[in-house]
């Protein structure tokens, strides 16, 4: 299909209209909206939550959804909606804290081994092979077992395992970029290695990493709430979606809303991140 592909290459709109195109995509818009609202709720849950999430009312235990309690109340009479809203702080924090350090470490290590290759790259290759031989969750909960359950330890565990995936992506991208002329031009011009890596290679190689980061943030929320559910992440009485679902599990036949409502928050937020991720991927991909 030579000619058809040739046409699509010619048809690639310039950068400006690309952004406009992305903004016209409903998925990207919805995703941005969800993330925006979620961030607001996370930053000031007190403003939006109708009640104190930890206010215990033994006279209003396990009440079904009503105007007073739109998401019902839990086994201690706490307002579920307020608890779900306050959980935004923790769960949105997961999207950042469970990924950002893995991203930074991965980008630096990936860029270095990709640039210098040699023995370090060989060891890195074996390490990647070894790490991907473990199911992600198995390795993370094994590390959590070593460190002890809790949010901070969970972040450390996810970072310890997760950086490898970023590094692998970054390494491949740097090696691909090194094949381009401008990188070898830098070498000819006698630039220092660090200047070539961080000023020339990194900005060009980082695009797919950023796109992956968006998907990874969605995954981090899923993973974080899963660990909370299993009792290895956030610990009760902290309001966290996984913890809330686990708390409701024992009353699932009588008070189904306790587990159902926090799950909706997880799905919505995860959807928001993946929609933005898809939109960014379209936007940042070099060819339309």
């Amino acid at each position, binding site marked *: 299909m030579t000619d058809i592909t040739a046409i699509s290459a010619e048809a690639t709109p310039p950068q400006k209209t690309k952004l406009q195109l992305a903004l016209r995509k409903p998925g990207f818009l919805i995703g941005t909206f969800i993330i925006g609202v979620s961030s607001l709720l996370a930053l000031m849950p007190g403003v939006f939550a109708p009640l104190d999430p930890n206010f215990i009312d033994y006279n209003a235990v396990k009440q079904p959804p009503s105007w007073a309690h739109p998401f019902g109340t839990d086994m201690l009479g706490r307002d579920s909606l307020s608890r779900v809203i306050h959980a935004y702080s923790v769960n949105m924090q997961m999207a950042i804290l469970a990924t950002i350090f893995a991203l930074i470490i991965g980008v630096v290590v990936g860029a270095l081994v990709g640039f210098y290759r040699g023995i370090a790259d060989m060891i890195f290759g*074996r390490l990647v092979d070894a790490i991907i031989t473990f199911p992600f969750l198995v390795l993370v909960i094994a590390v959590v077992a070593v460190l002890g359950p809790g949010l901070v330890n969970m972040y450390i565990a996810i970072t310890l395992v997760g950086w490898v995936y970023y590094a692998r992506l970054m390494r491949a991208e740097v090696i691909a970029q090194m094949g381009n002329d401008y990188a070898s031009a830098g070498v000819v011009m006698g630039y220092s290695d660090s200047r070539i890596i961080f000023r020339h290679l990194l900005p060009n190689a980082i695009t797919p990493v950023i796109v992956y980061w968006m998907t990874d943030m969605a995954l981090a929320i899923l993973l974080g709430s899963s660990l909370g559910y299993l009792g290895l992440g956030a610990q009760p009485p902290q309001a966290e979606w996984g913890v809330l679902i686990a708390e409701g599990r024992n009353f699932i036949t009588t008070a189904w809303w306790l587990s159902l409502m926090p799950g909706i928050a997880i799905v919505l937020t995860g959807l928001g991140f993946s929609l933005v991720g898809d939109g960014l991927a379209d936007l940042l991909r070099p060819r339309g």
Partner: protein
Amino acid sequence: MASIQYILKRLALMVPTFILVMIIIFLLVRFLPGDPAVAIAGDRASDADLEAIRERLGLNEPMLVQFWLFVTNTLQGDLGRSILMRTPVTDVIFERLPTTAFLTVYAVVLSLLIAGPLAFVAALNRGKWPDAVIRTVFQVGLSMPVFYIGLILLTFLAARLHWFPVGGYGDTFGARLYHLFLPSVTVALYTSAIIMRNLRSAIIEVLDAEYVQFARAKGLPNRLILGRHVLRNALISTVTLLGLSIGGLMSGTLVTETVFAVPGVGRLMLEAIFARDYPLIQGLTLTFAVLVSVVFLLTDLFQSSLDPRMRLS
């Protein structure tokens, strides 16, 4: 078929990887808090007893010697005794493994049954409404944590409607299919979302490929073009993807087993972690790594038997 040489080469490549895997597991377990001797003998054991246990387990030896002991024992099939169960770790694992294997294979079959036809429908209607509906549904599915899907299915289909049992796993093959249906669907819903997404773009890519255009120009019937030219090529990328996502599949199985109280190795892993049963944690982590490697290997072999280009290299 893949040559013996290829398999041997592939196995040889796994050796350095597994040395690293053993090092990671060894270090992980050495860093577990608490004294393993205390964990085994209990809090009220005498110092002499503890010392005897340490001596027996080689805990007083230097790290390198301990690692050597770990490797040689493992190669002889000795993974130590479970503190929780008070039986050899290998026995515990082999008792639970078939259930997990059954659940995993069941889930893979279900995900292919769900994702395969829908990916075809979406790809053939690219950009039209069936494509949009299918993609949206799976996009939402991809944002659902496995434990949440499981909990919803458990609550409504098992606890409320009584269509399926709430727990247990059955004795006969048929009973197992019935008992493990909801857990498998739980894992499959998540996996099929990943497969659907990739299979759809693989099919679209193949549909646009020059050899498919050429097949059309030859005047072949449509079912032949789809069945022989498109499906075969799309199958390769699906199998590769399935193989690569085996880790995620097992992570999902682990969570699902916990939600549905299925007595497999996944739930055992969590039990071991809460009980700080370090020989069991060590054995299970190793088991998972071996399982993933075996699946990687099988994927490679399957791929090379489907793709003639890979047979020679």
